[in-house]
């Protein structure tokens, strides 16, 4: 069987309409490849991700979570473009958490492109071509994959195949060659006779036709939707208050749960006296979990109040652990040899030949995702079935985990995926999903009632799965002209596969080593994953080298980048757009940084000044982005705006600190997230005209922000930022305040 046929699936007829059934699953012998609930009479499922109604409505099933990135609109556009669908009739629905919606196009995108597979998916995919471990669990949102893999490999093919089948159906009905027919706005047209048929009239017949083996795509010059900024489909509900998130689920006879886990990560619950909670009206149960205590009550506020009345005793974890100790331990660990990641040339010989050595130590703190929707989950276990309501970036994994923990066969677990009120990676990896075992146990205790568990914001902070706190030491040797002869680096490794340690600069002798330094604090993927720390290390250090060589940071970088590469292009574009060659206004300085991640290159030039109190004021960020063809210019811009502001927020003031083995931050009051007043007045974002492979957009805007900020601060004050965040350091630095006064007076 041809691989493509296997991937796309075959047609299935349903009562009153046609269904191009989902998946090669039908061909693979699992019966009808159609989710039973998906098509009603009068509707047809076309090639899995699209459903066409007799009324011409087109419903696109989204295999990715909506967590704010506008991905639904972009994916629907890619399908509707190839389908030639009438856009106002196009709607989206979340794909059910069902194996038949497993996202084989994600896997295929990785396999065929044979490039950077986001580490987020390690463990579910075996990168050897053709053997995709846990194939069935791929319904994941993350790694900036939606448009470039699902869209390119899945949505466009599905739309093109569906259009061809509709054309074939019209050709049969009219007895004319398919080649004489064209399509536009959900109609098949026969120009010679002036006849036309609506897609809704043809859907049932189309479903009975064989699936074409080879999709025919439009020429980009014929695109009508791609490249335009059609309004996002999700926005009207979000301005009217009717958009429903997991936390908004309301079910008959629903109970509420509040939970408190051991503040010390890695600890466990030893004992709790439930009496004070059980004495309160409305409290139904006190539940002891391995590392937490929970209260189930008829009201959420009752559960919260009752939980606060308990005095649970926790033990374990590492009471001696603090951020200071962790960083000191990392610094010591970096003195020892690590696992070699890059070994090019001979760094020892380069040391002998060189004229100048530059040596720097960097560190970055734990960061919290701090999505605006606190962690929550709703579930019901009754009559041998388990139902789950909530947002997840990894739907099919969550389903199989819920089934395992509930002790039920997979078919008995029903997922109701909900949009996420932000996520940024928090709902990505299995090891980050510390709410999942909690809700399974609570559903069993509350059974047969459904139960909604909501973490307090304090719990959300205390029980995060943070961007890890990490360190790196980098050394380089420069020749007489200031060019780097060698780059020697050791970095503290992360739990998952690190995909960001490589440097983009052409340096003949390189040694890059990863050093393990485990600790019990829960960590995971945070928007742009390992690029957050490696972008800071690499782009700060290259700036240090440029200054050590007394060369312009832009010229210095360009000499080390492959000509014509995406990075070289965004470097030049950002420099040009920011007026890099002209002096900044008095009292201001600029810094530049550039990082390629998830297939997209981004350069930021950040222009800032300092107040008399030593507080930076960012006036302008000029960005150049090369992500290949832009599908939806406005959502692309939204993603870069959001990435810049999240990166700036983190670099300025965010840090999770640990004391006594527990996280110290409790709420937004001690975790300063950027607010309106701190937003740079100018975000000047430019997308390069580009025809290369599609890159992601959710994440790549983040990594260059922190180093651009630090590099600008160095240019202004001479104070080199080697640790994040910057605000506490500037406040502590008398010299920064003096310099600020000197530059502003």
């Amino acid at each position: 069987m041809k691989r493509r046929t296997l991937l796309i699936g075959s047609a299935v007829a349903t009562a009153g309409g046609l269904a191009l059934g989902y998946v090669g699953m039908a061909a693979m012998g699992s019966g009808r490849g159609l989710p039973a609930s998906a098509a009603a009479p009068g509707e047809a499922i076309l090639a899995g991700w699209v459903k066409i109604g007799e009324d011409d409505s087109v419903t696109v099933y989204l295999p990715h979570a909506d967590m704010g990135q506008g991905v639904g609109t972009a994916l629907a556009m890619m399908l509707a473009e190839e389908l030639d669908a009438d856009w106002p009739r196009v709607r989206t629905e979340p794909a059910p958490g069902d194996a038949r919606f497993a996202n084989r196009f994600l896997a295929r995108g990785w396999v065929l492109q044979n490039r950077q597979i986001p580490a987020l998916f390690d463990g579910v995919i075996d990168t050897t071509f053709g053997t995709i471990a846990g194939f069935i669990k791929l319904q994941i949102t993350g790694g900036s994959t939606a448009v470039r893999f699902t869209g390119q490999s899945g949505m466009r093919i599905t739309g093109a195949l569906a259009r061809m089948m509709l054309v074939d159906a019209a050709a049969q009905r009219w007895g004319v060659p398919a080649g004489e027919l064209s399509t536009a706005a959900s109609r098949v047209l026969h120009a010679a006779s002036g006849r036309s048929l609506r897609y809704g009239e043809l859907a049932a017949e189309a479903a009975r036709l064989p699936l074409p083996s080879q999709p025919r795509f439009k020429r980009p010059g014929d695109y009508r939707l791609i490249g335009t900024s059609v309004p996002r489909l999700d926005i009207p509900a979000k301005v009217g208050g009717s958009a429903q998130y997991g936390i908004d689920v309301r079910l008959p006879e629903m109970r509420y749960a509040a939970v408190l886990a051991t503040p010390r990560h890695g600890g466990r619950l030893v004992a709790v006296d439930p009496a004070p909670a059980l004495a309160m009206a409305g409290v139904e149960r006190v539940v002891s979990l391995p590392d937490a205590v929970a209260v189930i009550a008829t009201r959420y506020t009752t559960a919260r109040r009752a939980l606060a009345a308990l005095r649970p005793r926790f033990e374990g974890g590492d009471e001696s652990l603090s951020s200071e100790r962790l960083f000191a331990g990392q610094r010591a660990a970096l003195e020892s040899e690590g696992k070699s990641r890059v070994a090019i040339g001979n760094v020892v010989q380069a040391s002998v030949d060189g004229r100048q050595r530059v040596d720097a130590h960097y560190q970055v703190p734990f960061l919290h995702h701090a999505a605006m929707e606190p962690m929550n989950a709703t579930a019901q276990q009754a009559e041998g079935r388990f139902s789950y309501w909530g947002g997840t970036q990894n739907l099919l994994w969550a389903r199989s985990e819920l089934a395992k923990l509930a002790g039920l066969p997979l078919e008995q677990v029903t997922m109701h995926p909900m949009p996420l009120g932000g996520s940024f990676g928090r709902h990505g990896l299995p090891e980050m999903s510390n709410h999942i075992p909690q809700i399974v146990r609570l559903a069993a205790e509350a059974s047969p009632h459904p139960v909604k568990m909501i973490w307090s914001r304090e719990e959300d902070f205390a029980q995060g799965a943070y961007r890890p706190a990490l360190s790196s030491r980098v050394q380089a040797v420069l020749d007489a002209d200031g060019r780097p002869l060698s780059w020697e680096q050791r970095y503290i490794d992360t739990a998952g596969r690190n995909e960001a340690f490589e440097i983009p600069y052409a340096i003949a002798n390189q040694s890059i080593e990863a050093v393990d330094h485990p600790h019990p604090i829960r960590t995971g993927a945070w928007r742009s994953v390992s690029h957050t720390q490696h972008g800071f290390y690499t782009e700060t250090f290259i700036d240090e080298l440029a200054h050590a060589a007394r060369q312009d940071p832009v010229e210095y970088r360009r000499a080390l980048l492959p000509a014509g590469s995406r990075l070289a292009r965004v470097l030049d574009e950002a420099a040009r757009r920011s007026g890099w060659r002209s002096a900044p206004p008095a009292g201001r300085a600029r810094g530049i940084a550039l990082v390629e991640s998830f297939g997209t290159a981004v350069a930021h030039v950040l222009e800032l000044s300092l107040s008399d109190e030593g507080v930076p004021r960012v006036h302008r960020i000029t960005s150049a982005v090369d992500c290949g063809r832009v599908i939806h210019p406005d959502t692309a811009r939204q993603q870069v705006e959001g990435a810049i502001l999240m990166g700036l927020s983190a670099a300025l003031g965010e840090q999770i600190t640990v004391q006594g083995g527990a996280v110290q931050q409790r709420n937004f009051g001690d975790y300063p997230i950027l607010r309106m007043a701190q937003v740079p007045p100018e975000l000047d974002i430019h997308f390069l005209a580009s025809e290369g492979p599609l890159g992601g957009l959710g994440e790549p805007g983040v990594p260059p922000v922190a180093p651009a900020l630090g590099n600008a601060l160095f240019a202004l004050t001479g104070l080199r930022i080697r640790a994040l965040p910057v605000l506490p350091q500037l406040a502590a630095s008398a010299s920064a305040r003096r310099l600020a006064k000197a530059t502003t007076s």
Partner: protein
Amino acid sequence: MNSPSIATLELQVNGTRHRVAVAPEEPLLWVLREDLGHTGVKFGCGVAACGACTVHLDGQAVRSCALPVAAAVGHQILTIEGLAAAQGGSGKALLHPLQRAWIAHQVPQCGYCQSGMLMAAAALLAHTPKPNDEQIDGAITNICRCGTYPRVRKAIHAVAAGAFA
């Protein structure tokens, strides 16, 4: 441990009178969400720090997560669900000018904080029809993790300039 005493309170929400039996000190947020179904009002922090729960009390923006429900008795409560109708129209056809500006400028990303943002902006414009940037900074202290701030600012200025009158 004593359980709080339950009282029957009368609330005016979006022009409709409701009677609820709750503890008077319970935050207004949870009564609006769980008892009255106004889930557009969001829980973000519980300590009046983030603004996701912003509603109007007699036209003033207040953070309902830290306001005892008893303190709202006798006042007109307006939530995001009532913002459009408060313009004198009803149904989806007549949105508040800010809501139309929010759509035109494609402001929301995840959308979770946007109810609170809109309510804070509506209260600002009701008192300061043409705010400058500093006044916007002072009134819009809500947190948006997605970073929609630049578009929020643009949309407010557009409404102030009469673009959505």
